[in-house]
């Protein structure tokens, strides 16, 4: 028991509620889309599976594709090259330079290529600002849309990231105040009072919140750090450390590997560097970054996936001019430091990708639990204040967002496949589908007697339809997938069908109705998951 006077408990309860209420609906959106974002690679592979016998994106053979592409690119975009696999394990390279926008933020501008992994030829070429190019590259459209919704709620930079950062901080405040408000945290860890419906809703919320407490703190801290570092942290560091200049700050972060020498020099074999990196780390490469392509001081940074024990990637630096191994590079700066290690841990802990599908599945469940705690907390809060018209209406808005969001997310996927089948840019269709679904969900909440049931049934129908629509819109069928190394596509199809069955079951299940507060409650607490 955490000893607090009744007055302090009341204050904490007010902080717990009022810190959450203004941002809780957005927090719920960030959490649910975060669940999806954990599987962004799998969603990309599923939505844009590319069949055919081909080596992995970063397997030998990549070097000649890059050299051929570099010859077609304006040399001013040779400043940096980012190479990594995207949806369906397609090989993607972005030759770019960094420019400073009028608002003072640095952005990347250049030329992006998608290569055919079988023969190394260029499949698509884009030129422009990085964000626009990534959006225009259709194969990763769906995954990117969902990730952007999680990262910035599709609000332009820097406002979207500032908002999600604030949401992360709010989650931190809610978690800590919730811990203090829950006086018998340990004693109540196993208790669900099912015989008292009025208390059951509260117990379900408290038990889920209590068990998930460590991860609520972890995800809130790492999420707000990642959201706020670029739009807030970097300008502040640049202002106080470098008189507002961002370039020397980035040089410190990136730990410029080789002494500057702009003499032109052909690039050495990058495939050989990747083979060496594999033998050093025993893991596979995640991405390659090349600085100063075609110069004597060209540096190739190879990021390898974490080894069995670690959460952090291993990075090796090679000389681009002669292919020699230079050093193992820390995550930040030139020399290993506690700050650099902490910075790397933040990423590993937030994304949960360090152990493949197993850790992703775990992070998905933890985010699901947090989303449940958020939704049930909102419904409890509004339920207790049913006497006030404003709170009653807010309860309806909570149902709209809580049960309408899954409908909107499934609609985005549907729109993506339909747009690709129609041969048009998918981004506009996905955005339109998202807003249309939101409007239809709002109308359902306004007109239907049991909007929760209808929205869950709509979610079930859309999820069940997605595997079929994927296939009908040109995706590979199950018999085609069985023989390939794309078993993940079948797994995602099955997961969607399981999700559809779960939503259908939840829509038909009678709610565990709490006793109506005075006057009669119109908002129902959510049923326990499962």
């Amino acid at each position: 028991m955490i000893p607090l006077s009744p007055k302090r408990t009341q204050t904490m309860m007010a902080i717990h509620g009022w810190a959450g209420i203004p941002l809780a609906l957005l927090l719920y959106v960030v959490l649910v889309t975060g669940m999806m974002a954990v599987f962004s690679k799998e969603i990309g592979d599923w939505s844009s599976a590319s069949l055919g016998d081909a080596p992995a994106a970063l397997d030998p053979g990549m070097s000649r594709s890059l050299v051929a592409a570099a010859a077609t690119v304006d040399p001013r975009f040779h400043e940096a090259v980012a190479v990594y696999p995207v949806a369906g394990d397609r090989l993607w390279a972005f030759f770019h330079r960094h420019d400073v926008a009028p608002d003072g933020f640095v952005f990347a501008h250049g030329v992006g290529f998608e290569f055919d992994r079988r023969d190394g030829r260029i499949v698509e070429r884009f030129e422009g600002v990085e964000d626009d190019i990534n959006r225009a590259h259709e194969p990763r459209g769906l995954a990117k849309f969902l990730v952007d919704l999680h990262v910035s709620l599709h609000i332009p930079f820097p406002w979207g990231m500032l908002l999600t950062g604030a949401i992360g901080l709010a989650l931190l405040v809610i978690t800590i105040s919730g811990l203090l408000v829950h006086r018998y945290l340990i004693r109540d860890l196993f208790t669900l009072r099912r015989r008292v419906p009025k208390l059951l809703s509260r117990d379900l919320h408290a038990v889920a919140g209590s068990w998930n407490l460590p991860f609520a703190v972890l995800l809130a801290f790492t999420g707000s750090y990642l959201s706020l570092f670029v739009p807030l942290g970097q300008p502040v560091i640049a202002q106080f450390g470098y008189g507002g200049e961002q370039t020397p700050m980035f040089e410190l972060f990136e730990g410029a590997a080789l002494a500057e020498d702009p003499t032109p020099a052909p690039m050495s074999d990058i495939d050989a560097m990747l083979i060496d990196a594999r033998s050093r780390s025993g893991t596979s490469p995640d991405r390659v970054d090349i600085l100063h392509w075609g110069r004597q001081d060209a540096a190739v940074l190879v990021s390898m996936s974490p080894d069995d024990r670690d959460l952090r990637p291993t990075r090796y630096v090679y000389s681009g001019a002669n292919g020699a191994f230079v050093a193992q590079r820390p995550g930040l700066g030139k020399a290993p430091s506690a700050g650099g290690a902490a910075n790397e841990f933040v990423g590993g802990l937030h994304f949960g990708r360090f152990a493949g599908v197993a850790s992703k599945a775990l992070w998905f469940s933890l985010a699901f639990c947090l989303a449940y705690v958020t939704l049930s907390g909102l419904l409890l809060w509004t339920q207790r204040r049913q006497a006030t018209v404003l709170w009653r209406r807010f309860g309806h808005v909570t149902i709209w967002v809580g049960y309408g969001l899954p409908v909107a997310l499934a609609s985005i996927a549907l729109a993506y496949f339909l747009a690709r089948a129609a041969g048009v840019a998918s981004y506009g269709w996905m955005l339109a589908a998202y807003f249309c679904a939101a409007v239809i969900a709002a109308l359902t909440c306004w007109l239907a007697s049991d909007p929760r049931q209808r929205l869950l049934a709509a979610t079930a129908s859309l999820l069940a339809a997605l595997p079929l629509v994927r296939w009908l819109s040109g995706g590979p069928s199950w018999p085609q997938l069985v023989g390939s190394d794309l078993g993940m596509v079948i797994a995602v199809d099955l997961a969607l069908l399981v999700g559809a069955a779960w939503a259908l079951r939840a829509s038909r299940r009678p709610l565990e109705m709490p006793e109506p507060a005075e006057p009669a409650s119109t908002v129902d607490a959510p049923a326990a998951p499962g």
Partner: protein
Amino acid sequence: MQVTLALLAAAVSTLLLAWIGLRDAKRLRVQEGDSASRQPFTSHRRRLLALAAATPGVLLLAGGWWSSTVMWLGGTVTLVWLWVLWIGRARESRAMRRGQRIGASG
């Protein structure tokens, strides 16, 4: 290897925590009523079992298995949360069936 270690550690911790939950005084009182046949654990025993449940994670951490430690923690809290939901429902439906039988025979 990291997943196997994390699974084993989480299984051990979940079992120990579930055992604490099974003999938790408040849970027994509200879910099984006064007629509960099991005696609740003493505070001393609870602490001992909780310490034992934390041991696999501490061992993983001491061995430098960072990724397995994080997965152990995540896996344990998720599994125990699901177990609490399941045991609450299972006990309740058993109690209801017992009540119905008594009602029918009476």
